[in-house]
C-alpha cells in the first residue's frame, strides 16, 4: 500500500504546479483539476518522468443545467490512476491536442470530438472514427441535450 501511495504522491507532486484542485476519490486514485492552458505542460511533465501511460480520455457532459463539459485524462501506473480534469465551456469547447507528446492519443481525441463536440486543437486526424459518414454536423450523441430526432428528423 505504501508503494501505491508513493506512486500517487510522485505524480501529484509533479503536477502540483498545474493543479487547481487535488482530490483523492479512492486509495488508488488522485483527481486533479487542471486549467486548459496548463494541460499540455502537465501531460508532458508526467510523460517525461515516465510516470505510467495514458489509459483513456473520458468526455463528460455535466448536465443540462450546466454550461460546462469536462475532459478527463486518465493515466495508470500499476494500480495507481491519476486523472487530470479539464473544464471547458459547452459553447467554446476547445482543448489542445496531446498527440505531439503521446501519439497514441489520436483515437481517444477523435472519439472525444465526435461524441462530445469538443474541438481538439492540433490533433493530427480529425476524420470521423465511429459515427457514420451521413451523421449530421453539430450533433453530438453524448451531450445530454441529444435527442434521437436530431438524426431522424433530417
Amino acid at each position, binding site marked *: 500500500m505504501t508503494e501505491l501511495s508513493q506512486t500517487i504522491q510522485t505524480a501529484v507532486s509533479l503536477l502540483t504546479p498545474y493543479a487547481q484542485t487535488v482530490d483523492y*476519490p*479512492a486509495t*488508488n*486514485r488522485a*483527481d486533479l483539476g487542471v486549467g486548459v492552458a496548463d494541460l499540455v505542460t502537465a501531460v508532458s511533465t508526467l510523460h517525461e518522468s515516465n510516470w505510467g*501511460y*495514458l*489509459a*483513456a480520455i*473520458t*468526455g*463528460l*457532459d455535466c*448536465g443540462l443545467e450546466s454550461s460546462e463539459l469536462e475532459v*478527463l485524462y*486518465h493515466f*495508470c501506473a*500499476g*494500480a495507481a*490512476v491519476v*486523472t487530470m480534469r479539464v473544464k471547458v465551456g459547452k459553447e467554446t469547447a476547445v482543448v489542445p491536442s496531446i498527440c505531439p507528446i*503521446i*501519439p*497514441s492519443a*489520436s*483515437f*481517444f481525441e477523435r472519439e472525444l470530438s465526435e*461524441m462530445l463536440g469538443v474541438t481538439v486543437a492540433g490533433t493530427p*486526424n480529425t*476524420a*470521423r*472514427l*465511429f*459515427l*457514420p459518414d451521413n451523421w449530421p454536423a453539430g450533433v453530438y*450523441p*453524448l451531450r445530454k441535450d*441529444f435527442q434521437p430526432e436530431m438524426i431522424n428528423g433530417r
Partner: protein
Amino acid sequence: MHTNEHTQKAETFIVPIGPQHPALREPGHFEFTIEGEIVTAASVRLGYAHRGIEKGTESRNWVQNLYMLERICGICSHIHATAYCLGVEQLAGVEAPPRAQAIREMVAELERTHSHLLWLGEAAHEAGFETLFMYAWRDRETVMDILEALTGNRVNYSANLLGGVKYDVTGEQASKIEQGLDYLEERTRHYLDVVTSDPVFIQRTRGIGVMTAVQADRLGVVGPTARASGVVRDVRVEAPYAAYTAFPITPVLAQAGDLEARFVVRLRELFESYGVIRRILANLPPGELVLKRMPRRIKAGEAISRVEAPRGELFYFIRSNGSDTPDRVKVRTPTLCNMASVLTLTVGRHLADVPMILVGIDPCFSCNDRGLVLKRGADHEHWTWDRLRQIGLDYYAGERGSGGVGGTSISPAPLPPCPPALLTGMHV
C-alpha cells in the same frame, strides 16, 4: 528490368480493405497505401458495429445496464459485466462475497481460455494453416461445454449480478472442469510445439510485425500484445481485482515482440489460466454467492474499474448522480489501444503480412450463439446441441449417399432438402 522497378517505385496505390471481412469476420475499414508490395501508410475507419451503448446506459437502470454491457462483445462478455459490477459495487460502497469473487475469476479465466483458443484458430486460418484452425476450434468446444454446464450458456454467460454471482460450482461440475482442463493442457502443449516448430508456419510469424518494448510503451498497447514485447502490462498482476489477490497469476512475457511471440504468450498464458482455475476449484471460499442487499439507487460519485480482458486492459469509468440510472458509463476496450499498433507495424511490410499483423493483436469480433428457437406459429421448440449435431451428421450422411460429394459426376449434385428447422430463426 530496371525500368520495371523504376515504374513500380514511382507508382502509389491505395488498397482499401474492408469494411466487410478485413481479414476477420468483423467490420472495419483500412486503407493501405502501397508502393509495389510495400505498405507506406495505413489508416483505419471504425464504427461499423457502433451501437450507441454508452449513450444507451443513460436511459437504463443499473441492473438493466449489466445485461446490455455484457453484450458489447460475444467473446469477452463476462469481463465487461465484471468490470461494470466491480465499478458499481465500488460506488455503492459494497463488496461481493469472497466465493462470488472467486467464481468471477474462474469464469473470467475460462473465458480467456475459449478466447485464446478461438484466436489461435483464427490466426492459423489467416496464415492458411487450416488444420490447426480446425483442431483448435474442436478443442475449444471442451471449454465451451464447461461454460455451458456452469451457466447454461456458451456466450453471454450472465454469471454476474450486482453484488455477486448467479451460479455456484457443484462437486460434479468441478470434476468435469478438471477433466476438461487436463485435456486442454495436453492439447495446448501440442499447439505450443506446433507454432514454434512448424517451418512453414514460422515463415509467417517469426520476425514479422516486430514491436520493441519501447514502441509498445509509446503506442500504448495492452494485454498479450504488450506482453509479447516484454512490457509487463497485466491488470490481474498490477491491480488485482475480484479474487486475484487470493488466487494470483504470474504474467507471461516474451521479448521477441514479433507475431511468433504473440502466439507463444497467448498459449503460455493458457497454462496460467488452467493452473489458477484448478487452485480456485480446490480452495473455493465458503459462503454466500450474492449480497443480501444491493441498493437500487447508487450513491453519487465516480468510479474507475480496470480488468484484464483476454485482449488486455479493459477500462470502465462510471459516474452516478445518485439516481437509479448512471450519469455516464465510459468503456475503453483493449482493441482501441492495440489498433494503433497495426497502423504502425504494417508500414514498411509487405501487403501480404497485413492480415497476420492485424490478427496478431486479436481484434475483438463477435462470436455467435448456436441457440436455435423454432417458431411455428405460437409454438417454440428448443433444440439441444446434441440434437443439432445429430441433424448435421444425418444431413451430410444423406448428401454422401446421393453421390454429391466425392462422386464422379461433374455437374453439381442437387442439394438434399434442407431440414425445415434450418430455414427459420437460425443464428449462424
